């Protein structure tokens, strides 16, 4: 089945799911309101966005140099750096690090990149026990489900479903639908895992080239647990996450939590610059960073589309998207949903695999208004639509022209003939107005939801002249 048909199937499933409609409407309204409460001053917000954009754009323009500096400083600090061109290489590297350390049990913090490479599946297939520890991801894993949002992965689940998940998986625990009680149950279950795991795996929010520092943002404490308790810590990140200087971090740490969840700041900000020193008493003895490319270097070459790499994964665009709120995350069928997903997935996977997503956008611009790093998402989506049909862009875009459709192209050619020739256009409009009673108002699916008017009795040209308006 084509990617378009598969997408349509998933869309229909989402639109007919009343619980999804209610959960997402409620969650997105909540997140939008919370974010707004953190930005009371419009001018100040624009200054912050400009600053964050400039920091990230600097990174994207200088990725090669910055990654070399990052590697050099990380290595000086004792952190081992690995380069992975694609998901397969990344998984193999991580697996081999775990094998070398004889690590069989892993606790994992939230990482979208690890979802991108399907790390969990790979490790499980290779006999490694890997446990998600972020509460939302933990619940998803127990249900063999997938995240539906990049910041709040279990947003599609209600507390009754979660209560059932707990009691199904931990029959010894008392059944409860109380959120505090469920949270405490998760705490108890996971504490034991933290203290006995052989290794911890995490993502990275920002990697500072100047000092060789990995920065992680979190609220629960599971990230710190994963990166501090086990003797081995493996961090995995996309190459675009590098930031030039330490002084760039406060502005990004300021705008990220506010944009993502409407928090002043997250409970913890964890900055790791090395493994346990000889005289230290805790912390991992071995720290590794896996740098994942997976198409990012290809995208970075083209300055007309590489702004997507500014992304700091706040999810704000997703929260404000009027299409996402109707579909939920799963309908997109990709790791990253919503506006950022449409662009990122189309570019990383190619338009032939993910280009269908570009139709899931009304170009309303709500996402561009809130993006903390000023990615022009509607412009990029529009551009990708164009590439999927006309395909004249650079080789940074894969699957160019793969969504050309002869019938549709024919219709637009006809439209062009009428509307690029003024005399033809005048004749067309005149005909439509004179024959208005015969113009069909039942136009496929459009008419399922709306009545359509008949064309006007006269064109503007006609009535304007009658009213005395001149041509020049």
């Amino acid at each position, binding site marked *: 089945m084509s990617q378009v048909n598969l997408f349509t199937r998933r869309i229909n499933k989402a639109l007919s799911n009343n619980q999804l409609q209610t959960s997402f409407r*409620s969650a997105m309204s*909540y997140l939008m309101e919370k974010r707004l409460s953190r930005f009371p001053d419009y001018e100040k917000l624009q*200054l912050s966005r400009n*600053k964050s954009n*400039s920091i990230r754009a*600097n990174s994207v*323009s*200088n*990725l090669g*140099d910055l990654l070399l500096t990052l590697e050099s400083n990380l290595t000086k*600090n004792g952190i081992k750096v690995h*380069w*992975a*061109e694609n998901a397969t290489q990344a998984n193999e590297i991580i697996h081999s690090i775990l094998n070398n350390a004889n690590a069989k049990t892993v606790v994992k913090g939230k990482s979208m990149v690890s979802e991108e490479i399907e790390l969990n599946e790979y490790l499980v297939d290779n006999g490694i026990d890997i446990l998600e*520890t972020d*509460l*939302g991801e933990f619940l998803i894993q127990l249900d063999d489900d997938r995240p539906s949002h990049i910041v*709040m992965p*279990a*947003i599609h*689940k209600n*507390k009754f479903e979660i209560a059932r998940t707990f009691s199904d998986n931990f029959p010894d625990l008392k059944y409860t639908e109380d*959120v505090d009680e469920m*949270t*405490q149950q*998760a705490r108890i279950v996971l*504490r034991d895992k*933290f203290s006995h795991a052989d290794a911890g795996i995490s993502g990275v929010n920002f990697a500072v080239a100047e000092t060789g*520092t990995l920065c992680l943002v979190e*609220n*629960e*404490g*599971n990230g*710190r647990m994963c990166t*501090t*308790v086990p003797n081995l810590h493996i961090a995995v990140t996309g190459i675009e996450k590098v930031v030039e200087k*330490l*002084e760039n*971090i*406060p502005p990004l740490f300021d705008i990220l939590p506010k944009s993502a*969840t409407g928090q*002043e*700041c*997250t*409970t*913890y*900000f964890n*900055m*790791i610059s*090395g493994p346990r020193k000889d*005289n*230290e*008493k*805790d912390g991992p003895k071995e720290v590794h960073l896996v740098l994942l*490319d997976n198409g990012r*270097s*290809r995208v970075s*070459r083209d*300055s007309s589309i*590489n702004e997507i790499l500014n992304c700091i994964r706040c999810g704000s665009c997703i929260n404000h998207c009027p299409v996402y709120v109707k579909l939920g995350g799963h309908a997109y069928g990709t790791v990253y949903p919503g506006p950022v997903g449409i662009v990122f997935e189309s570019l990383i996977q190619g338009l032939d695999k993910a280009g269908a997503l570009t139709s899931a956008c009304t170009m309303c611009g709500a996402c561009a208004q809130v993006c903390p790093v000023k990615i022009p998402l509607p412009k990029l989506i529009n551009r990708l639509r164009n590439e999927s049909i006309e395909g004249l862009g650079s080789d940074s875009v894969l699957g160019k022209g793969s969504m050309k459709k002869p019938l549709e192209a024919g219709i637009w050619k006809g439209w062009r003939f009428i509307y690029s020739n003024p005399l033809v256009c005048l004749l067309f409009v005149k005909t439509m107005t004179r024959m208005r009673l015969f113009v069909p108002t039942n136009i496929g699916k459009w008419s399922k939801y709306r009545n359509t008017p008949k064309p006007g009795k006269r064109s503007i040209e006609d009535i304007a002249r009658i009213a005395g308006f001149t041509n020049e």
Partner: protein
Amino acid sequence: MNNSKDNILNNLLKHSIENKPSKIVDKESHKPLSNKKKIESLKSILESVRAEVHLLKYNGLNDWINSELSKRNLSRVLIGDSSIQRNLGLTFSDDLDVSYYSDSIESWKDKLFNDIDVGITTTIGAIARTGSLVLWPNSEEPRLISLVPDVHIAVVKVDEIYETFSEVIEKQNWSENMPTNALLISGPSKTADIEQVLAYGVHGPKELIVLIAS
């Protein structure tokens, strides 16, 4: 593996990008907060996320800690070492069971996870505008003291309250010398993953008690 690195870098470096964005000068200038306002800001933001904050005299720390730990039944205490204890002017009462983090985690992990009620740490500063404590764990005060026990008591010196994170980084010259682990702690641990309902005490400490000492 070197091949991968070269492939990736070749992809990046051979195509230099024409439009390097201009640096934006930091136009942010506002009247700096007074000390009083800094304390107020720190306290109110921390309290808004359910941290407990007390203003004490430095020489009052001992009495407060001893009496509160007793009252709250937090008898099994963890502190870095005796020098930290001395610096805080603490003489623990006999009904408290005090442990020092004197050995590597490997030798006593189960006790840390199961038999400690409260961890006490110093800080190297606090940030008024975000309600954050700044910690640089080291060999005397290892990282897990502020993470594993259910309760974390952190002592902040009143003259080490900075206004912004940028100010801390600049004044303490972080870029010259980053520690293995630098932390900002802004409250007890929490989550909103279940129906966006805020729940406290997930994996980090359930309670954060901040003692601002002057």
